[in-house]
């Protein structure tokens, strides 16, 4: 494991609502993500998974606590610095792909790097390399509406990776895919993680999906209940996740 801390969260608290009617969604989370990690956050509905992801991806702000992203405290920096941080250090993968329907897959993948001011030659080369890695060379000229769900999501992964971000946040990446496409995508994510190209934090309710991560954190009632490590056997890891899920109870859908 690499010792470089990509994300460091200390005593993260998030409350919603007015003073007298506050709901505490996150109740003091401590989490450190190192470079090369592949972490899955699981938890029943209402456990605070999405809130945690929103805060980590700087879309939302914590009520209390510290969130360090690549050495910068996201709670204390300006909006401009935050936008730069989001652009340069974070890659996003959404459940519903969020590819722009006005451009081809190639342009969708290239967009973040092109907007970042990279040389067109480099943008083109990197787009093609990533497309090759994810088996999308044939689809590059096609528009999102011409692609299958799996192809769209792999395209979204390419887009997330193109700026070589410090970390990728994936929100239910297989949620809209059939099992075959979901499996293909997870294998791709594992591949890029193992090749050292990406540190991944994935939020999911699916134990099968979580079993592709190196570590799974179980979140319940706003706190991290436990962390389990994959070890060497993914199937055995999957069974342990199911057991843990059963012991915690709640609605994981």
């Amino acid at each position, binding site marked *: 494991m690499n010792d470089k801390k990509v994300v460091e969260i200390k005593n993260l608290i998030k409350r919603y609502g007015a003073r007298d009617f506050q709901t505490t969604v996150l109740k003091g989370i401590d989490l450190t993500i190192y470079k090369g990690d592949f972490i899955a956050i699981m938890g029943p509905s209402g456990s605070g998974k999405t809130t945690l992801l929103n805060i980590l991806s700087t*879309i939302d702000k914590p009520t209390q606590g510290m969130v360090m992203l690549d050495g910068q405290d996201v709670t204390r920096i300006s909006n*401009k610095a935050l*936008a*730069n941080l*989001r*652009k340069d250090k*974070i890659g*996003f993968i*959404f459940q519903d792909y*969020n590819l*722009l*329907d*006005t*451009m*081809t897959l*190639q*342009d969708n993948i*290239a*967009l*973040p*790097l*092109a*907007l970042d*001011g*990279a040389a*067109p*030659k480099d*943008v*083109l080369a990197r787009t093609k390399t990533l497309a090759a890695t994810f088996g999308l060379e044939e689809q590059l000229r096609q*528009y999102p*509406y011409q692609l299958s769900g799996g192809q769209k999501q792999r395209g979204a992964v390419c*887009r997330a990776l193109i700026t070589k971000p410090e970390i990728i946040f994936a929100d239910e990446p297989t949620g809209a895919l059939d099992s075959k496409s979901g499996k293909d995508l997870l294998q791709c994510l594992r591949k890029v993680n193992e090749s050292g190209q990406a540190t991944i934090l994935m939020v999911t309710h699916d134990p099968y999906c979580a079993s592709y991560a190196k570590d799974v954190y179980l979140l319940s009632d706003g706190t991290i209940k436990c962390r389990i490590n994959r070890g060497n056997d993914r199937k055995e890891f999957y069974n342990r996740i199911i057991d843990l899920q059963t012991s915690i109870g709640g609605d994981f859908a």
Partner: protein
Amino acid sequence: MKIVRLAFLNFKNSFKSYLSLVLSLAFTILVFFNFQNIIHSDAFAILGQRNKDYIDMLIQICLTVLLCFLFFFLWYATNVFLTRRKREIGIYIFMGMSNRKIGSLYLVEISFVGATALIMGIVFGALFAGLFQMIMGAVSDITVDVRFGISIKAIKMTSVSFLSMYLFFALKGFWNITHSSVLNMISAAKQNEYLHVKPVVLLLKAALGAIVLASGYYYANKGGRNDILTNALLAVVLVIIGVYLLFGGLIPLVFQMLAACKGFLYRGQRCLWVNQTIFRMRKNYRTYAMVCIMGICSVTALATGFAMRDRYDNMVAFNHQYTFQFISNQSNIEKTTQTLLDGKSPITYQSALCALSPDSEQLLSTYSDVRQMHLLLSYSDIQRIAQEAGVTFAFAEPADDEVYYLSHLVLLSFITNGEAEPVTIAGKTYRQTQRIMTPYLGYMQKELACFYIVSDREYERLKAQSGLYYICNYKLADDSVFGEARAAFDAIVSNTDENYTARVSIDPFSNEEEWIKAVYSLCIFMFLVFIVASGCIMFMKLYNDSFEETERYTVLKKLGFSTRTLSASIAHELVTAYLLPFVVMTVSAYFSVLALGKMMRADLFVIYVVSTVVVLIVFVLFCALSIVVYQRTLLSARAKQ
């Protein structure tokens, strides 16, 4: 009854979302109504007495433009309405309604939209006409009485034209619904997303568009005599079709090629706005074409207005170059008139010269008319009288086989082929190498005879075989003595074989040409209508589009793109949206103003540039407003996260 009630409720509840459509239609009706109102107003009645052919041609051209515009706009607007409603009303199928009933619901609903737009268009049109009347009265300084009453005939004509076309498209929509499948209705809203068009199709459209447009430019500037009206109408129709094909073919093709060139595309925000432009072009090309055509109309109207104003000033100066002019076969005419003028008024300048009258049957030219005299003048004489009157004379002496024709300023001429036919004088053929519009011989040059300048040597040679006519011109310092002097001069006017003496004069207080100012004002009015209409249509279209973009920009914000980046991309996209119609308009308007210049026999390039700059300023203002509103809708803190 239930259908009517349901349609009314739908219309009432969705009114806000259809507001831009209703307003666009109302604005179109406003334009059409105002134009009809001008035709049926007294202003045109005054002009009609002057030159009916000219007025008829203008009306024909403008009506063709407006009707084409109205047709395409209704086509586009009803299509937008149909696509929007299809998905929603498709749900009624699940409630057990038949396609026919849904079609009827659509028909009633679209009738409410049409009726609201028609009422709004006519009411606001009437108010706008009144407002314009006040503005025009204040700025145009017209002494002829131009009234902008509300014409019932204009209301009828507007209603009939609009409703007949609207009904056609409404029935087309009805037919479309009754023949649509449920799936088609429900997925209708998504249909426009399929935006990539085969390059071959675009190429064909582009080639056809270029040919049609070039033909339009050709016919606009084709010289002619009797076919000028046909050419002008043909040019208008061809340019309209050409512009539509250009926006539907060439421009998308160019942008698709730019998008395919990744070296170009992957620089800055281009990847975003070029793709957005392609997407929008596919959906909006009719709007862009329409705005472009209206832009051409506005530049042409403004240029015509400026040119008319300029021509008015020049015509007044031309006519009043001299207060009194005399032509006579009596050699003492100068002395006689001088005596009669003595003591009446100081003379600002005066001149005298001798003209030759060759046998008129020997003079066979384009302008030969036995009722008119054909007089030859010597180069030196004209040079001298120009100097005496303080008028510039910068012509070299014609060669012995050349003549210069002393023409006059006309408002418009249907003869636009510039080739002057040779003139045969006393058995010798001369080339007409100059057509001079400067009033060296003032009003006489316009009213009395055809004057040709020949070289001094030719003048001397022809002198022996020609009759002599003595011309003298006076410009009085005091115009108030005009009536008294004219009465005195009447005594010497004679038209006998022995004594031919004619007086040519124009009342200095005459308002003979005042009506041209009405044309000027009407042109400015047309310009205002067209430019405001095109700007508003563009603005409303983009404003409407901004709501369709909400989801896309939410994704972009989620991906972490800064507001600055997205703002820049929006600015590029919207500037392109305004720039494309402006560029096509600038090129097309050049040819339309060129054609106008040929008809006015004047170089209107400066006027064209000024008019284009005025339109550019208006476009820039609308563009800036669109950018601000677009950015506020999509990027403000209140915009959906």
